[in-house]
């Protein structure tokens, strides 16, 4: 007969969430901005290149994986209180985008991976 975790003597402890710095280290991400990574907890991820979609559906604390490097990604990440932005495929943000991200305190990260690959890695890490 199935036993619940409690009955088997396992105590579920609410795990500490990973923060952006830990994710950067594990996934080997590039960091374009000079802003605090440790204080930003990661609740999950969101993948989309339509900024309107992110505005509508991404949730606070999620890491946003995208190929859009337009300055509006920062505004939307800030508005939605996302944990960080990751630009895929080695796409580098412009100077003004980095400045805006630093101003808003949004970590702007990068990877050589494509969206599918990085999403898989992040999903594994957070599950």
């Amino acid at each position, binding site marked *: 007969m199935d036993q619940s975790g409690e009955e088997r003597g396992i105590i579920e402890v609410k795990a500490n969430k990973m923060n952006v710095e830990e994710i950067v280290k594990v996934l080997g991400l590039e960091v374009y901005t000079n802003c605090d990574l440790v204080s930003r907890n990661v609740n999950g991820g969101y993948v989309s290149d*339509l*900024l*309107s*979609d*992110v*505005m509508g559906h991404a949730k606070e604390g999620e890491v946003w994986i995208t190929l*859009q490097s*337009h*300055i*509006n990604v920062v*505004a*939307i990440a800030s508005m939605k209180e996302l944990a960080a932005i990751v630009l895929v495929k080695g796409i580098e943000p*412009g100077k003004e985008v980095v400045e805006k991200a630093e101003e808003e305190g949004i970590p702007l990260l990068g990877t050589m991976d494509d969206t599918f690959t990085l999403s898989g890695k992040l999903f594994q890490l957070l599950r």
Partner: protein
Amino acid sequence: MNSYYADLHIHTVLSPCGDLEMSPGNIVEQAVEKGLDIIAVTDHNHTGHARLTRELGARKGIWVVYGTEINTREEVHCLTFFDTDEQLSVFQQEMDHNYVKMPNDTSLFGYQVIVDEGEQIVEEISFSLYPGLNWSIEEASEVVHKLGGLFVPAHVDRTMNGLFAQLGIFPDDLEVDAVEIWRKSSREAAKMEYPELKPYTLIQNSDAHYLDDIGRAGNRYLMKGRNFKELGMALRGEEGRLVI
């Protein structure tokens, strides 16, 4: 002021999605039939049919504005308008340096051909005109304005390649002369949904890909004459010039 009826968003057969009937000659004929005073030829990422259409339009009393519908890096569609041959050539050269070239699969996307007055094909563009140019929307606006052209984000409230779908909010530093909303929207509804549009003149055009579509949307422009300077003033709502 004079009143001119204009449809500033028309595709020719050069656009992959443009119907084969959309030759410069047929477009001008259709424009005459629909009572248009001004049209613009706005093919995707190419200017190849602008000159011939202007020439043919002039014979029928229609002013044809040079233009394109470019696709930016963010995949936002934007209308560009130019006055002179020189501006048009330089703009084409600028685009030549910024294409992301991949072959055009005609079975999937359609033909991209340039025809002459006798409707004979004189050139086929072999790379796809569909992908975004290697310009951000701000860079594109800057290139256009430096040349003395006009820049108008296209159908901003449409899901496919509209500014708001792609970019979420109207970019702070983007310089535009006017904004096109979808032909089926209303100005009131668009301004209600996107208050950022309030400062701009909103225009509506047919976005015709088929002959019958020409003139199915358009605006009346109140201007002192049919020239590029007046058009710019009307789009920006300057000195009494207006788009109604």
